[in-house]
């Protein structure tokens, strides 16, 4: 299949979380999200209770997909970065390792220049993590799901 399943384990997730936390701190941003290109959130740092991260992740992925569509129309490979400037909060989005979107929400506590600088460092760290993940065999995951029975699936939907 063209899109291999994305499976993340404790070790990678804690490494990814550490990158998100460090970027959040070093860039003085409000929030950092790490989102799969399909719109599923992988990690976040600095999220407050009001922020709907599920919706935000899906919209960010839609936005990046639309921009990717524009890129291919004009024969560009990919627009790796996007920036939306707001009155209070601005959004910086970067595509990492071709399949992950690094989203930074920031306000006047920092500058776009500092965010971009710190994002570049985080980009390198995340690329290394996702490249090593891509080369990792995924045998262990299959065993867990092979145990799922038809009854388990039926039970999900209730009587």
């Amino acid at each position: 299949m063209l899109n291999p399943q994305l499976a993340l384990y404790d070790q990678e997730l804690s490494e990814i979380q550490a990158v998100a936390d460090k970027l959040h701190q070093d860039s003085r941003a409000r929030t950092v999200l790490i989102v799969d290109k399909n719109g599923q959130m992988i990690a976040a740092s600095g999220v407050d209770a009001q922020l709907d991260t599920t919706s935000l992740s899906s919209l960010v992925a839609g936005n990046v997909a639309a921009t990717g569509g524009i890129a291919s129309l004009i024969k560009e490979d990919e627009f790796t970065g996007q920036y939306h400037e707001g009155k209070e909060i601005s959004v910086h989005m970067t595509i990492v390792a071709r399949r992950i979107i690094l989203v930074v929400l920031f306000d006047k506590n920092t500058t776009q220049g500092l965010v971009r600088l710190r994002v570049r460092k985080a980009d390198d760290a995340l690329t290394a993590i996702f490249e090593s993940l891509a080369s990792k065999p995924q045998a262990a995951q299959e065993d867990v799901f092979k145990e799922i029975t038809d009854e388990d699936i039926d039970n999900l939907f209730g009587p």
Partner: protein
Amino acid sequence: MSFINYSAREINCKLVYYGPGLCGKTTNLQFIYNKTRPESKGKMISLATETERTLFFDFLPLSLGEIRGFKTRFHLYTVPGQVFYDASRKLILKGVDGVCFVADSQLERMEANIESLDNLRFNLEEQGYDLDTIPYVIQYNKRDLPSAVPVEELRTTLNTSDVPDFEACAVTGEGVFDTLKALAKQVLTELRKGT
């Protein structure tokens, strides 16, 4: 492409509702949204025009409960049905785990159904998927309308690969959850195969 988070013990899957313009894709999602307990659903997002036609997609996150200690989360998307939004439809199909084709049962929409189904097959192939092998269900919507074509006729024309199909009236909700359940079940069964 499902996303399995072993650390948080979560399975995330993407389901797409496809079909011709005004066939009832958004109505399916709205009914699911209205009938789901608040703790099991997120916010429904509709990127629509001022006349409430889908412009890019509708999105509804659902939690169906736990399976072997893993929380199952389904992200439901619709595509814009109007012919000229084809570029957007292709984008939404990226990473799909299961497809529901919503057919409009009305006689005057048969051509639109066939065109949309051909378009689905073509767009999936472009992404490297095969409609004959991915989790897939068909819903014959608008069964309540007077000009509805008999189901057997719809089945012969649209369900040539004999996938699970359901009669529905998305406005009243008839058949909506049966369709979703059948598709989610196929996606989870596929996951068990380890694909």
